[in-house]
């Protein structure tokens, strides 16, 4: 946790708004902008309330507090014009009134503080600079973790939940390399590429202890971990990095929330790298939002046979930059932010040098096997076919390489360590 959340308690009101009747008598409750925030929190918890509806509601009624009063009174005029072409305004007004009944915005707001979730209001203290001038800035952001991380250069590593082994490996290794170079990795904490990117950044942090933690922008409330299988990762990111959400506590995953979340990822990133995307993948919307904000969009090529690379290949065809190495990403970042020079990558392992340079016993065989292994995940069977050695010899030499940490194994896949 950063020190920021505790200092937030001592905030002085920047915008004085009198406490309205719906809030009632308050002793140590929200002040000023916090009253505004408290009402936005309450409004955001209404069913189907997204950034667009909220924006229109606020501009129609002038203040969040007034908008809330109208909703709570069930005035259907309050939502007139809110719906676009879909939905029934009267039914929506009734649904909102029912949801608003008995809700105390102040209590909602304090529940977030109690849960360690900080509420950042547009224009208020701690609200990310990167979002201030955005096309569609969130009215509120709910934050857990170190808000100061957004001062570093940022790269969004995003991609499909249904990733291939290749994509997962690359996302994890690039997440690690970016963190090691002092870059903040931004992603969405979804399964697949997102999780691998976060995991990679955490790997880098755990190894060195001094690299920046990752930033995650999620589509649910802070208390609704989605997917549930990512709970441990989620907690770790909140501990050493930052998790942001546009949704208040208790917000369940809903399909429409993820594209909205993607625009925030795009807005927070200096460079967006799409690692893998299916033909109609959600990460393509992140790329579009990034392009709309003049961010650099890079795509990683994959196999033409892989459905998980169809979307990324289309991005390349449509003009996205090609990223085939971590240097491509750092270069794009450097040209984007002339002030920042990424730190050099960590040196290679000394034991690896010994084998690669041909010193020590068995080094000849070991080097030959490393050559046969190449830089793509490979099976033992492939190595036997490539070297034409006996299975016993391949295993003996390979085991030696694993003992030297030059080769790692995941399932049947053997990989040469590139660091």
């Amino acid at each position: 946790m950063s020190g920021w959340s505790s200092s937030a308690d001592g905030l002085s009101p920047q915008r004085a708004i009198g406490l309205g009747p719906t809030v009632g008598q308050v002793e140590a409750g929200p002040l000023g902008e916090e009253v505004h925030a408290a009402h936005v929190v309450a409004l955001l918890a209404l069913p189907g309330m997204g950034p667009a509806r909220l924006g229109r509601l606020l501009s129609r009624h002038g203040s969040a507090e007034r908008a809330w009063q109208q909703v709570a009174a069930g005035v259907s005029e309050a939502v007139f014009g809110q719906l676009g072409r879909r939905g029934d305004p009267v039914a929506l007004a009734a649904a909102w009134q029912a949801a608003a009944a008995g809700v105390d915005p102040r209590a909602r707001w304090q529940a977030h503080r109690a849960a360690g979730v900080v509420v950042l209001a547009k224009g208020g203290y701690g609200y990310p600079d990167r979002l201030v001038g955005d096309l569609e800035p969130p009215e509120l952001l709910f934050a857990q973790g170190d808000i100061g991380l957004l001062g570093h250069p940022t790269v969004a590593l995003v991609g499909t939940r249904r990733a291939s082994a290749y994509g997962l490996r690359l996302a994890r290794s690039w997440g690690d390399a970016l963190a090691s170079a002092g870059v903040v990795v931004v992603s969405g904490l979804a399964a697949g590429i997102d999780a691998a990117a976060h995991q990679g950044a955490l790997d880098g942090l755990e190894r060195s202890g001094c690299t920046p933690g990752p930033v995650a922008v999620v589509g649910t409330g802070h208390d609704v971990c989605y997917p549930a299988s990512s709970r441990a990762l989620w907690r770790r990111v909140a501990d050493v990095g930052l998790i942001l959400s546009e949704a208040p506590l208790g917000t369940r995953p809903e399909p429409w929330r993820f594209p909205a979340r993607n625009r925030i990822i795009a807005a927070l990133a200096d460079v967006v790298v799409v690692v893998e995307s299916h033909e109609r993948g959600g990460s393509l919307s992140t790329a579009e939002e990034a392009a709309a904000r003049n961010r650099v969009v890079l795509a990683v090529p994959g196999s033409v046979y892989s459905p998980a690379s169809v979307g990324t290949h289309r991005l390349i065809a449509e003009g996205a930059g090609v990223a085939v190495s971590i240097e491509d990403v750092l270069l794009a970042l450097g040209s984007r932010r002339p002030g920042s020079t990424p730190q050099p990558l960590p040196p290679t392992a000394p034991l690896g040098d010994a084998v690669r340079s041909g010193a020590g016993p068995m080094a000849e065989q070991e080097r030959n096997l490393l050559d046969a292994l190449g830089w793509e995940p490979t099976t033992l069977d492939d190595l036997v076919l490539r070297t034409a050695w006996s299975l016993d010899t391949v295993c003996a030499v390979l085991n030696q390489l694993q003992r030297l940490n030059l080769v790692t194994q995941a399932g049947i896949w053997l990989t040469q360590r590139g660091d």
Partner: protein
Amino acid sequence: MVSLSIPGEAMLASISSSVLRGVDGVPVTVEVHVAGGLPAFTVVGLPDAACREARDRVRAAVLSSGLRWPQQRITVNLAPSGLPKAGSGLDLPMAIGVLVASGLLDSQRVADVAFLGELGLGGAVRPVAGIVPLVEALAERTVVVAPRCQAEASIVGRHCVRAAPTLAGVLAALEGSAPWAVGPSPLDRADSAAPISSGDLADVRGQPLARRAVEVAAAGGHHLFLVGPPGAGKTMLAQRLVGLLPLLEPSVALETTKIHSAAGERLPIGGLISWAPFRAPHHGASMAALVGGGSSWLRPGEISLASGGVLFLDELAEFTPAVLDALRQPLEEGRIRLARASGSVSFPARFLLVAASNPCPCGNAGTPQPCRCSVAIRRRYRRRLSAPLLDRFDLRLGVQRLDPERLTIGGPEESSEVVAARVAAARELARHRGVGANRDLAGALLERHAVLGSSGRALLTDALRQQRLTARGVDRVRRVARTLADLAGDAGAELRDEHLSLAMYLRAEPEALLGVEP
């Protein structure tokens, strides 16, 4: 066997036969008492439904054979009375008993003769299941069976096996007025029961690790777990494995034959099963079909039918947890005990387990193709396979879908015949150590025959430290390394580094294979 002619009206006959209990036969005496009184036919001695139906079949068979049915009070007692008796093999001895007790057949004709057979309503003598153990239980010199059972009954080799197609035929042959039926003579052991065509190992190309795993499994009796997407040739590998196993030892062959006989399975021509059986039950099969059971007649299940050979469980994760749990006892003891109200029965179940699984429900986890399953689904799939079960496998490896390009690389592979010779030699070495196969090496035997030198110790310690090997896996790796050395003709007790290395690659961690982070 003996009939007593009581002066006056009552007559008693007692005829020898046997019934199945598990896969073993138990001698039974069929006592028939015919006395004056109202005509009746009762069977006592805990008969089951089949025995009660036997009354009607016996009466009809006697009448349609043109013989007289005594219009008297007939009581049949099946002794010993405490023994549950199932099956229809007692029809023939009952009918013979009635004929003797009513004076239609001289009791001397059935001295030292036992009878096994079901009767049709028209008088035909029909085969019964389990003839091998049934005959084995009999002490009589002569055994009369249905003609189709004659070869099977002759396997035991201690009896003069006779057969006739009908009850009238049996009667005539016993009286010496007609010859016995001529059955198929038992063939030579060597050309009996050719194995089911299981394909040659030479067809397995481009998968050197899997080829070796199959050879090691056959030589050391090590259980094998294959993980890979559909189309990776898992079934093909399992079928090749059974073709590498040596002919069954005579005692094992007889036991395996008894199990198949007791289960009513079709036996090969000549009767004796001398090749290692291959059983591949579907995961949809019932618990009784898989592990044995049944309501009245306790039939051996697939795991017993695989005894002496290979039990192949494809789609291991699809089997119910109850079935997977039931595998534990046979894997440890080589037998399965089934408890029933009528008492418990134990069947042999000493099989080489080959199991296969997809890495995840969509089959793509751990392959270059993207997996379509969520992490939660992959975890759930993984949880179906209990850790203690997966731990029983000395050999666990991932196999890949076969890339057609790979099939053409390299020279011709060794044939099953060549590999089987190495397997037989390795099994011989294990026998000299006092175990059936290296998978049974444990404790002092393992210390003596799978010695770790300083180099091997360092190798395993490094792997443990790098978490490539678990402490529980160490002994299994040593055992497999022993088998690898045996196959290489390396008689030294100290294990070589290359064999330890290879043994580790033959035992991957299941989490990695199933695409779940450990």
